[in-house]
């Protein structure tokens, strides 16, 4: 248990020291990463990119039915 705790603490310290001693360019890159991830997950994913099938249907059965309709009925109705 003590060994495991030590290992985790060493890993934590390794990352902490790494981030603390990061040069200016590294901080800039991390800023870009955080802004990018925020835009991707907190803006684009939530407001613009819902999973259409998950959002519109409650079960896999309904999703399958919908796609079957798209595959076989939608094109026919366009004839």
């Amino acid at each position, binding site marked *: 248990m003590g060994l495991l705790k030590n290992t985790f603490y060493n890993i934590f310290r390794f990352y902490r020291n*790494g981030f603390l001693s990061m040069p200016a*360019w590294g901080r800039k890159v991390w800023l870009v990463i955080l802004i990018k991830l925020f835009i991707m997950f907190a803006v684009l994913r939530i407001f613009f*990119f819902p999973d259409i099938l998950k959002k519109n249907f409650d079960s896999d059965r309904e999703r399958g039915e919908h*796609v079957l309709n798209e595959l076989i009925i939608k094109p026919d109705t366009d004839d």
Partner: protein
Amino acid sequence: MIENIDLSLVDWSRGQFALTAIYHWLFVPLTLGLSLILVIMETKYVRTGSEKWKKTTKFWMKLFGINFAIGVSTGLILEFEFGTNWSNYSWFVGDIFGAPLAVEGIMAFFLESTFVAVMFFGWDKVSKRFHLASTWLVAIGANLSALWILVANAWMENPVGMVFNPDTARNEMQSFWQVLFNPVAMDKFFHTITSGFVLASFFVTGISAWFLIRNREKEMAVKSIKVAAIFGTFGSLVLIFTGDTSARTLAQVQPVKFAAMEALYEGQTDAGLTAFGILTGKDGADEDGLDEKDIIASIEIPGLLSIMTNGERDSYVAGIKDLVYGNEERGIIPVSEKIERGRLARQTLIDYREAQEMGNEAVANELGKKFGSNDFQEEYFRYFGYSYINRPADVVPDVPLIFYSFHLMVALGFLFLLLQILAWFYTARGSMENKKIFQWILLLSIPLPYLASVLGWLVTEMGRQPWIIQDLMPVGIAVSSISTSAVQTTFWLFAALFTALLIAEVSIMTRQIKIGPKIEEE
């Protein structure tokens, strides 16, 4: 039928996917190749103990880090698009697409993320050998990540190892190994990663040439050029070899794309390879919509296309007309026949569904069994996508686009080999520092492998049209029923986001390059 689908929605969705994929791909290949160049440089440091090699490695690692950090997770946007814009496709491919992507996610996370931290934070905290092992693992992890993505992409080109379930409307994986060792996947993997190796070698030689032009860090620059040139030369050779094997596989599994790459309309024995040519209109589109092109001013290597395709000069290479209208003598089925078979498969699906809805279990069971039989899958369901095709010529992609993209990519591939051999030669002879014109050529060549890489993807993806999954699903059927304006909005949002990321990468990187490794100052 297919014309009645909202083409502006399809086109905008395609445009959006292309935009995000191309931007994502600007970051990826440098990671693939530069990680291995770092491995070579750091191995030199560990073996020699030279501080100069350590600083050289750290300099290139810094540029690798900037590219890696800014590029990482840009590919996730493609996954968002699958769920929103391509929901029919996402459902239809089932776990076949999901499984390789999940393996990729786990591998990328555990291998790359963990050991990238050791690469950057661990220089003075772990032993030399452990650090080198971490650099190796990052390189292996990055390249293996590419394998899983390319396996998924290859399945779209050559769907294998699955069976369609008519109850769930999904393709279910029957053999993971067939999906993994799909011949298209193997060719694609080696061709793609070696294109990344060549791109990275030009990145290193180009930036090193800039240092030589500026009379700075000359020792580091020449050493870096030597490593990158040797790496790039072997990379180029494998790239050309895998390009050849890829084309041979394509001739079997995507013959229309292959014929379009050569603008080969009439099938031939002793078919020549067009090294250069200009396409012109012939007689306009025929009554079936096939718009044949002539090649003028061509430089042709006699018999080479037959040899490359089948290993024999007198072998037959199918042309676009054979593939569209059929060639009984050569055993090529016409598209009209494939349309009939596809419609029969779709009608069977409709009948199965109706029988289920009406509670006619006997008929439903009988029809359901068909989907489980190899004969039905091989003879009919494999042409399912043709049921949406109106005219046989609709299965022909944009030939001029494919022809020019392919030929320009190949020409650039040979140019890369020549330039890397020259760079190796000049560094081996010790004359690189004096070759000012050549240094400028190396510097100005940095964008060329990016261009070649994008051209390669254009051939791959546009050459497959109208299919999103070869023969099974056309692009128009794959798209979700969402509003075109929503896709237009996100298209421009992505364009802005990725352009900002690219500007950030270029500006941070340029600044770090200008600072340089500062080896000479010590």
